């Protein structure tokens, strides 16, 4: 009895507030826009049979005809992919440096990576507005050094979005790679060097393959949330960037078109299923390797 209660309470909560809402999104994506409250038709009030009959895929057809949407999906994929690569290029040397740092320094370095996690995401993105704007710190600095003669336009471009994503998701990249490198058996690298590998060759042939699971986990942890990102493209990208999270938000709040917003959400979810399953597999493999 007690066991039943223990399972049933969290189970019922997640069913009601996680799973059922998805079916509602799916249902509304098949409905039509209407000038009523709620602003779509048909609803449950029309009877279940009527409701099923009135369903159609015209919102999905609409998404394929208006090129705003598929452009937004493609540009989200591109931005998420490039940001992930950039985050890896910045994050890997940092994780490597941390794993090679003296033992007594490592807890402090670790805390320095985790601290931004606990700081407000919104504030960290906002901090870049003052740096990247036309009269911001970066342009002031570059003008002062004489490297440029006119301010660079970075705000409201895709470049600003890359910087924002790399900045906010960098800890997600560093931590799994650091965990993999920290476990790495140093004597394997020494063995490679003893057997005639140069340090760089040993790095490519031993260190990189052995930290592979960390690299994969880090890349997914950056790529998956970046794909549906809303705050960073809205604040730093402005009208200059198109990302699907932003399109969904605006479709819902500005155009009040709930059925189309729901259809956008359904497709985003379908795109995300592949990387999510690959990520879960990687995590499972890693867990099995540890035991």
């Amino acid at each position, binding site marked *: 009895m007690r066991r039943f209660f223990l399972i049933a309470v969290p189970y019922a*909560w997640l069913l009601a507030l996680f799973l059922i809402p998805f079916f509602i999104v799916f249902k*509304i994506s098949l409905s039509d826009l209407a000038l009523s409250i709620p602003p779509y038709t048909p609803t449950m009030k029309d009877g279940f049979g009527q409701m099923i009959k009135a369903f159609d895929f015209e919102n999905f057809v609409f998404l394929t005809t208006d090129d705003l949407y598929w452009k937004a999906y493609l540009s989200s994929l591109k931005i998420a992919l490039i940001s992930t690569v950039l985050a890896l290029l910045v994050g890997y040397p940092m994780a490597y440096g941390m794993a090679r740092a003296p033992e007594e320094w490592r807890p402090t370095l670790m805390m320095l990576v985790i*601290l931004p996690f606990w700081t407000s995401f*919104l504030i960290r993105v906002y901090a870049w507005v003052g740096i990247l704007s036309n009269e911001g*710190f970066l342009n002031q600095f570059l003008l002062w050094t004489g490297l440029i003669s006119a301010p660079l336009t970075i705000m409201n471009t895709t470049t600003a979005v890359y910087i924002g994503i790399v900045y906010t998701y960098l800890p997600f990249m560093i931590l799994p790679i650091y965990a993999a490198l920290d476990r790495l058996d140093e004597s394997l690298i020494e063995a490679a060097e003893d057997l005639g590998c140069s340090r760089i060759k040993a790095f490519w042939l031993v260190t990189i393959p052995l930290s592979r699971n960390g690299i994969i986990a880090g890349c997914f942890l950056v790529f998956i949330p970046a794909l*549906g990102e809303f705050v960073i493209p809205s604040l730093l990208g402005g009208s200059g960037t198109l990302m699907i*999270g932003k399109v969904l938000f605006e479709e819902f709040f500005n155009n009040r078109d709930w059925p189309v917003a729901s259809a956008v959400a359904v497709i985003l*979810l379908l795109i995300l299923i592949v990387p999510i399953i690959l990520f879960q597999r990687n995590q499972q493999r890693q867990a099995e390797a540890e035991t």
Partner: protein
Amino acid sequence: MRRTSWFNVTSLTLGFAFLYLPMVLLVIYSFNSSKLVTVWAGFSTKWYGELVQNDAFLDAAMVTLKVAVASSTLATILGTMAAYVLVRGGRFLGRTLFSGMIYAPLVMPEVITGLSLLLLFIGIGLDRGVLTIVLAHTTFSMCYVSVVVSSRLVSFDRSLEEAALDLGCSPFDAFRLVTLPIIAPAVISGWLLAFTLSLDDLVIASFTTGPSSTTLPIKIWSAVRLGVSPEINALSTLMIGIVTVGVISASLISKRNAVKAQQDMQAAERGAT
């Protein structure tokens, strides 16, 4: 002894400069007396004064705190139950679905979670306000809590629980007297994680809030869309300060506890010999 090469030192220095410089600039310029945020015009704390007098921000901060305390407490209870079920529950009908529902919210885009919850709340005719934000925040943060707690439960020596049961504890007493004290650090960090996630959330709160309840992130969002403002810089500095003090003192306390536990162990060993 590991080698500390110039390459490692440089990459760490540049990397941490990248992580911290934006926040340092934000903190410094919150003490700028000029309204022009990127031009330094002398030290002043006037923006803090204006912030304290701004009732809209204070109200939003109160709403946010209420939501965060309520949702993180609920999430900790539900998440700990879920973790216990996942690690100790054995087989039951729909276990795969259950673990899927625990892990999926961790990677779900916020816009989708927010949209789906809003459509649910409208569908069942629940008035949007503090209650709906609490329900929404509890749902996604209980998954984080359960991941943190279950990783602790996995590494936990099960024979301790069995010993308590053999010595006549009821299963509930065994949980209360043996399991809970051992997993307590994970439960506490789960609560803290849920609390900060709730404090921080903009997107899900925007979807699930009603006209009467504005949280701090929503308030900050509507201000920063208009550009950089010194008042927001002051507010950010306060928030960064609170988090920094909190995280550093938490890590110092856990370090001291670890040292103390080690000393106790040594004392016990000396006593035994």
